């Protein structure tokens, strides 16, 4: 089994949607998360609060807000556990954000067979 983090992105200048549309969109995300849980492929996932709510820290500073302004911001993420990339992509493709004007990135996480794996890790 392999783990992937799926990052969900939205344009930072995306127009605000009316409350009804927003409720419908969130319902889609809830349903999608439930499906993944039932399929046993999701380990963890969460939406993120607004990009502006970020606290940025460097060695010598602490700043209210993101360090860099970017066009696309992460609005949520999921950690999946599936056999391979094909399975991860098939699940990520169903993410409702794809027809809500956003996009996703699928990023592999090092597994127990990867660099630094323990000698006695199961094959």
């Amino acid at each position, binding site marked *: 089994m392999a783990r992937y983090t799926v990052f969900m992105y939205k344009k930072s200048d995306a127009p605000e949607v009316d409350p009804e549309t927003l409720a419908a969109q969130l319902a889609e995300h809830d349903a999608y998360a439930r499906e993944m849980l039932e399929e046993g492929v999701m380990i963890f996932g969460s939406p993120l609060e607004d990009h502006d709510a970020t606290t940025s820290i460097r060695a010598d500073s602490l700043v209210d807000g993101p360090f860099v302004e970017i066009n696309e911001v992460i609005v949520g993420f999921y950690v999946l556990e599936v056999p391979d990339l094909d399975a991860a992509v098939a699940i990520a493709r169903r993410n409702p954000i794809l027809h809500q004007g956003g996009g996703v990135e699928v990023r592999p996480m090092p597994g127990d*067979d990867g*660099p630094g794996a323990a000698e006695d890790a199961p094959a």
Partner: protein
Amino acid sequence: MSRPGTGRPGTPGSGGAPRGAAAAAREAEVADTVAAAHRGHWGSVLAATVGLTRDLDLAEDCVQEAFVQALTAWREDGVPGSPGGWLATTARRRALDALRRGETLRRKLPLLIWDEAAPADEAAPSAEAASVAEADEAGPARIADEERAVVRDEQLRLIFLAAHPALAPEARIALTLRLVAGLTTAQIAAAFLVGEATMAARLTRAKKRIVLSRIPCRVPGAGEIDARLVDVLDVVSVLLATGERAGGEDVLHAAVRILEVLAELRPRHPEVQGLLAQALLLQARAATRHDARGRPVALAQQDRGAWDRGLVQRADALVIGALARGGRGPYLLQGAIAAAVAVPARHEDVDWDEVVALYDALLAHWPTAIVRLGRIVALGEARGAAAALAQLETLGAELDEHRPFHVIRAELLGRIGAHEEAAEALRTALERRGPEGESALLRELVRGA
């Protein structure tokens, strides 16, 4: 059977010179056999070995060593009845030794995903659940049979792995030539006109991407195979375009072999048949496309008598069968165009109106400037150079950097007697990038103009 070492050197009558010549001939013969086995079996031997090592680099090393070992072993013991089987056994034995020697060697990176069972038999995840659901709709018994046939062919796994949509397009082409066709990095670099170091880096990065992302080495399940098949055809199509150049024979052979394997997997897939037809026609004409000095020969001047008629007929039958089954996809249309041009015994007998109509259908799939250029060439044959030139000018802005555009323009201008402009177009063509053999021909034409 005589064995090396049993003869006593220096014994009177052992006749050093003739025996040396015989040995040299034998050596050359074995080298040829090994080279032929390399072309014919490299991909399947690698596939058989990767299943064991689940590490592409280690498997490639073992296969390479098996071929080196074959040079000596086949000279001493004779060529085995099944060279491919011998090579696979030898490579796998080396792989086992290597795995025993250094477990950590393959631990530097995650192992390749290589499930033993057919995807549909695997437990649960949704992608496969979806493909099973679609398989049920299409008729479970038939799909189950296909799936079993599918998993038996390990080479297919590597074909689909190398053309995986998560890899960058140029990486797919390089990996296909390396993992499926067994071309060396230097050969691949030469075919694509890039430096060897650049190509080596591209291959390394692509292999790393496969293991880090866990791109599975498997034949896609019923639900996704049609889309994935098109990805493979797209790669092979680039190989054909490359194989068309002088010196591209290895690439062309590789493309044909991949298509033959795909045609076994999906014997009635019109797009596979269309592209296979196109590849076979390129092979049929291979000997006449360039002259002895490597200069390209125009289609009208090629010696049709020297074309391989068996290959032409096979390609024609593939196209006719696929069209009869209702295929109208772009690769089949390209195959139909190539067949329409190649089947007649004389250039004058080609039905160019039909070729133009086929190009119109192809444009509905691929409305690109290159396809329009092909249509204009056919139009020039069907309706005359003036009609073709009128349309050609509309492509001038888009194809100005494309050498064939200027070569075609020069040819059409020459046909309507505009020799000054034709010479100017030839000079422009020479300024554009292109194969050296073609440049040599263009220089001669410019001098003669």
